[in-house]
Structure formats: C-alpha cells, structure tokens
C-alpha cells in the first residue's frame, strides 16, 4: 500500500549522526515533517539545533543516517544532489545574509534569473509580489544597509519564497532582532504557515512556537529528547530537562 500523499513526509530524517572532529553534535536524530506542517525545534544553545538545520539544507555533510527532503537525498558529499535540492528547499539565516551590494529587487531576482532562467520582466513581478507579501512592496530599490534588521530579515524570507520552495527552513531568524522587529518577522512567518507552507524552524520564541507550530522537537545533547504535538509537550513534559527548559524560557 502506498502512503497517502497528504501524510507523506516532505522531510525525513533518520538516525542522523554529525561529527565535528571527535564531537558528536547530532547523535541519532530522527523525525519527519509532513506537507503543510510547521515543526519547531527548541532547546538550549549547543543542543545541535542549527547544525540539524544546516545538515537538512545540505550545508553540512553527515557521518551517519539518512536525510531525505522532497525526494532528494541530502548530506552526502558532492554538489549534485544539493543543486536540485535548492529548487525545493528555502533557508533563512539568523544573520539574513542578504547580498549587500545589490538592491532588494536584485537580491530576489538574482536566483530567479540565473537559476530558474526567468526573463527579467517576470522575475521583477515575482519579486514585487513576494515583497508585498512580507509588507515591503515599496522597498524594491533600497539597499540592504538602508533597511532595519527586521526589514532585512523579511527581504531574506521573500528572497527564499520567490523560488517557490516546498519546504522552508528558518534558523533562529529573530535572534538578532529586538522585540518589536521580531514581531513583524513572526507575523510574516505566521502568514506563511496559514497559507500552508511546510516549515521547519529553530527558534527561541516559545510563545510563537506554542501558538503556531504543529509539532515541537526538544533537542538536548544532540538527540531529540522529546517530541510531539505542541500542546501536549508543553503541558506535560516527561523529562526533567524539558521541564527546566520550559521553566527558564517562559
């Protein structure tokens, strides 16, 4: 029997091991993300959350286990599989990583034109569209350094979104922002979730995770320590580590 497409996972991580030298940063991590789900990864600094996301986006190779994203095998060395991966997966970084020498519009149209080979006109329209979506429809011609941190991060989200990925990965995207700017970025992510985008996010915004995420993964010492529907995990933590974490985070 073939699995139903609706519940077929877009991201499947099984028994993943990642070493930095002799340090085991990920130690047998397994989970899945289904289409349209929003999964929040929480945990203390150094728990391996960001590394996990970097492995899934193909920026790090893995030393054991398997990662499959939208049908692409990820984490093996060699660029071939990664090149196709990037059509389906968008990633947004903590430090925005916009291209400082290009306008907002060019930041977004660059990959549309170079990778997806869209004509300039169409790329422009897509850029204008995604910028409206993140509330920055009037900043096409600005340079990144002329924008606030929150605006830059929204441009980064728009840049990722423009390539119409199936899954979006968010790596602590609000950690560098003050509360006011954090709110505007979270709003954009909430809108995306409502539109059915599949999302995996590493976050320290517990309130946001509790409100928006479907599932939560609590990571500790490179392992998925606890996971489940967000309400249950927060209401009734089984391990003392998670209890402590929730107590300190809220």
């Amino acid at each position, binding site marked *: 029997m073939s699995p139903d497409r609706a519940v077929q996972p877009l991201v499947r991580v099984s028994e993943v091991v990642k070493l930095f030298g002799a340090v085991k940063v990920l130690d047998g991590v397994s989970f899945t993300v289904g289409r349209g789900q929003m999964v929040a990864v929480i945990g203390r600094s150094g728990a391996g959350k960001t590394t996990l996301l970097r492995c899934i986006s193909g920026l790090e190779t893995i030393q054991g286990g398997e990662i499959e994203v939208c049908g692409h095998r990820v984490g093996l060395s060699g660029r071939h599989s990664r*090149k196709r991966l990037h059509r389906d997966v968008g990633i947004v970084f903590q430090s925005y990583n916009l291209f400082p020498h290009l306008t907002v519009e060019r930041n977004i149209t660059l*990959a549309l034109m170079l*990778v997806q080979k869209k004509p300039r006109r169409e790329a422009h329209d897509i850029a204008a569209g995604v910028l409206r979506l993140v509330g920055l429809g009037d900043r096409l011609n600005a340079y990144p350094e002329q924008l606030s941190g929150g605006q830059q991060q929204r441009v980064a989200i728009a840049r990722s979104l423009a390539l119409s990925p199936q899954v979006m990965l968010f790596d602590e995207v609000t950690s560098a922002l003050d509360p006011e700017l954090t709110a505007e970025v979270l709003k954009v992510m909430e809108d995306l979730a409502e539109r059915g985008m599949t999302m995996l996010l590493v976050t320290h915004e517990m309130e946001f995770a509790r409100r928006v995420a479907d599932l939560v993964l609590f990571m500790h010492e490179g392992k998925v320590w606890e996971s489940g529907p967000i309400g249950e995990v927060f209401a009734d933590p089984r391990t003392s580590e998670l209890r402590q974490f929730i107590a300190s985070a809220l």
Partner: protein
Amino acid sequence: MIQFNSMHVFYLLEAAKWTIALSLIAFIGGAMLGLALALARVSRFKILRLAAMGYIQVIQGTPLLIVLFLSYFGLSIVGYRLDSLVAAGLSLSLFSGAFLGEIWRGCIEAVPRPQWEASDCLGLNRLQQYVYVILPQAMRIAIPPTVGFMVEVVKNTSLASIIGFVELARAGQIVNNATFQPFLVFALVGVIYFAICYPLTVASRRLEKRFHVAR
C-alpha cells in the same frame, strides 16, 4: 654647465609620459596576471593553489631589480633581445601580478563565508557565485590596498632606468648632469611623481564613497 631652462622642464615632462606608459603596462599586465593568481589561490584544485603560491613566493622573495636584469640581460643571452620598454613592462607585470594576486586573494577571502552559503542555497553555481556575489564585494574591499600598490608601482618604474630605459627618474639624472642643479631638478622630478600618484589616491577615495551605499 648649462642653465636650467624650460627645455629641461619639457624634457622631464616627456619622460614622465614614459613613466605613465610603463605604469599602465604594469597595471594592466599585473591585473590580468593577479586576477588569475588570486582565483588560482582560492581554487578547489590543489595543483592550481600550489602553483600560484609557488609563483607568488618566488617573485615576492626576489628584488624587482633582479627580475629586470633577468628579462633584459638574461633573455638576450638566450637569444630573446627585448626592447628595454618591453623588458621593463614584462618585469613590472610579473612583479605586480604576484602582489596583486596576494592582495586580491585576501579580499576574496574577506567576503564573509555566509555569502557563499546564501548564494549556494539559492542554487547558484560556483561561477555565478563568483561573478554576481563574491567578486563584486571583494572588489570594493580591494580598492584601497590596490590603489596603494598602484602608487608603489608608479614609483618602482624608476628602476627601469637601470636597464637604460629613459623614464622620469633617468631623465632627471640626465638633466642634473647637464645643469648640476640637483635640488631644483630632483625636487621637480618628485613633484611630477606626486602629480601622477595623487590623482590615484583621490580617485580611490571617490570610488570608496560611491560604493559606500552599495556596500
């Protein structure tokens, strides 16, 4: 002894043209070689990295004077008699290429690592990453050290006088031998060198300012 006169000034200015010509040859030749070396230094292929590094270390460890002697006197012995302008241009290009290659490698590496990752995640291939993301940013970083080095090259062209090429410094010597007015003559030569170099630094500052908003 001849009185210093306007003819001498004219002669020095004529010679300054050759200094400028030689500098241009050195910039253009050096820039092409330097870019190739810089890219080889950051290449994924070890053989290219090693070859570029070897070249740079040899040239950086050799006085420019020796390179000049080799290309002018050395090559003539094995049958390639180069004109002194060609020999000087070649030597200065080889010399500037090594330094520019090393300066520009540093500038390429100074572009933050996440810029590579972000463009990689957008699906750009390595060539596209270089052309559209990394090199434009490296160029902005490169302006001040490159101009600083260009000024250095202008002054180093004076070494070409050793192989009989009459450029500004050599012309100054000739005029001084005729007039014996060293303070006047060499001060004038210094002023002309300054007049060549100063616009470079001004242009560099302008460029930096213009790029600032698009940094």
